[in-house]
């Protein structure tokens, strides 16, 4: 039905439609919209989206993926309109810049008849998306805490470096604290290091001056962890079984885990490659004989020297 409609619309719109239909009348067009990468994690997402595009288009000649990135929420809203009016997409994979301002634009895409896949950041109105793919922030905190408990004993001291004060940060932190409860491990203090190497370095320097006895650090994020490690080495407190747990899955961190680094022995996954998962699932909704619609919450896998190789992408910027 949808494809018949699309063909009908093409016939009406003249020259543009002719070039479009030249490729194949049965093309499945999928728009992929996400913020312009301005930090390493998003750059990794951009890279994984491009990889998935190449792979899926090679696998299915009739699938056409259109990647668009936008520098701000209103530009993303315009990009969504263009995907509908110019490209006549059959499905949309979208990582919204912000939930509120993009809920209506995505709803309009849905009303054009396209299937909607939302990635990572949910919309502010439930029921718009057919497929939802996201990382698991509370699970990330919980998995980190479970690992901490395997290495620490009652009476040991840890410090926590948090991200930017946001819902994401709270979810990770609350789940971590809930899991640590009753373990007897003391959380000396927690400060925001804004998912940033420089802040990680400075906050850790201050923790080291303030607390003479720290046994482990939960840095929550790989960038913060890099700053923490530099501060530990500067103060000469990187020995004695001290360890740092970051998170996300930066390639440098995963490489050093593969090499058996003991200061940052593990990492907890919050992968930028989730955009590729979302694209796979969306294509599957056209190709698979099984039902696909639903919510896909990815695991926060603990990356250890044993499984690190399968999460290592040396060519990705992240």
């Amino acid at each position: 039905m949808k494809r018949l409609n699309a063909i009908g619309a093409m016939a009406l719109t003249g020259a543009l439609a002719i070039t479009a239909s030249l490729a194949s009348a049965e093309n499945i067009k999928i728009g992929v919209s996400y913020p312009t990468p301005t930090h390493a994690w998003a750059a990794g997402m951009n890279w994984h989206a491009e990889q998935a595009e190449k792979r899926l288009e090679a696998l299915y000649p009739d699938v056409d993926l259109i990647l668009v990135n936008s520098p701000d929420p209103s530009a993303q809203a315009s990009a969504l309109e263009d995907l509908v009016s110019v490209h006549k997409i059959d499905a949309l994979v979208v990582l919204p810049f912000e939930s509120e301002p993009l809920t209506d634009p995505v709803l309009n895409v849905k009303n054009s008849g396209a299937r909607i896949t939302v990635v990572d950041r949910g919309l502010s109105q439930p029921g718009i998306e057919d497929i939802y793919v996201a990382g698991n922030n509370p699970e990330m905190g919980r998995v980190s805490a479970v690992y901490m408990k395997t290495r620490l004993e009652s009476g040991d001291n840890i410090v926590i470096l948090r991200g930017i004060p946001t819902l994401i940060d709270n979810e990770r932190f609350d789940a971590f604290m809930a899991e640590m409860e009753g373990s007897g491990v003391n959380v000396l203090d927690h400060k925001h290091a804004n998912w940033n190497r420089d802040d990680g370095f400075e906050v850790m320097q201050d923790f080291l001056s303030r607390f003479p006895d720290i046994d482990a650090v939960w840095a929550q994020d790989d960038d913060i962890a890099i700053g923490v490690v530099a501060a530990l080495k500067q103060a000469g407190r990187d020995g004695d079984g001290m360890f740092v747990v970051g998170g996300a899955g930066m390639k440098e961190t995963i490489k050093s885990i593969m090499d058996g680094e003991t200061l940052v022995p593990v990492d907890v996954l919050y992968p930028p490659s989730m955009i590729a998962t979302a694209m796979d699932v969306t294509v599957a909704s056209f190709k698979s004989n099984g039902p696909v619609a639903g919510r896909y919450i990815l695991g926060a896998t603990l990356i250890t020297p044993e499984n690190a190789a399968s999460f290592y992408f040396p060519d990705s910027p992240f």
Partner: protein
Amino acid sequence: MTVLANSSLGKGKRMSFDIKTAGPAIALILLCIIGFLLNPAFLSEGNLTNLLTRSAFIGIIAVGATFVITAGGIDLSVGSMAAAIAGVMIIIMNSAVETLGPGLATVLLGCGCSIVLGIGAGWINGMLTTKGKIEAFIVTLGTMGIYRSLVTYFADGGTLSLDFAIRGTYRPVYYGSFLGLPIPVWVFIVVAVLGWFLLNRTAFGRYCTAIGSNEAVAKYSAIKVDRVKTMTYVIQGLCVSLATIIYVPRLGSASSSTGVLWELEAIAAVIIGGTVLKGGYGRIGGTILGALILTTIGNILNFTDLISNYLNGTMQGLIIIIAVWLQRGDWGKAKAKTN
């Protein structure tokens, strides 16, 4: 105090001048006492060294900003400029490893490029402001965006990392020390002394003050206004490049999050120090105290869990406003009236 102020206008003026001079120092001493009371480890040698080293980045940049602001200008591009220069330095040093090896030559090449870039970027800001006749706010707002997006582009959205072989050679520039003081602190001291001399003991310094007070009068007094103003931006660029040279060996990386909001911290340090935002009066000594105050606030907040993390910005904002309020001349008068 009231008697003095009323008895002689001249003495009253000197009185308010003294408050202005001593204000930032008093604020810094108060902060240190608060820090010590919260946690005696605040005054440990390790923490004081950390504090001074950390202040060096903003402090060095703020010395340059003192010249720009004294001459009636403003430079919003310094944070982005630092990020872009850091990015280019890393790219140049990484690509020079093969030909020059990971030794001193490569590091010197990187530092040389940093200085050339800093001076060039400052010169562009200056020329656009003076010859281009565009307001400094707009010029540097534009270059701020340009440099920020350039570093994002160079890093492909991610992070540029310095080759590990060079890090070994370059590392002492941040982590090393000489006569018990870290190298960045020495650089900070040298920049501060030169800056003080240039602003207070040379014709150039007097020209900056004159232009900031009244540009038209300065022009009629045969001061080469455009040249002097451009030079203030060049000095600012040079200061940014020096700060970058000591920043890069710290973590060996640059990304789009490098140097975010440094411009506002530098401007805040300058104003806390007693320099007038609209120009015409500048104090290098105050600027240095301002930079130390800003770093100390962040440090103290990390030393206590009395205040919610979410209120860090509130504390910083309050202390900045109080520090500036304390040293404004009107404060003495207002107090006298209410008494």
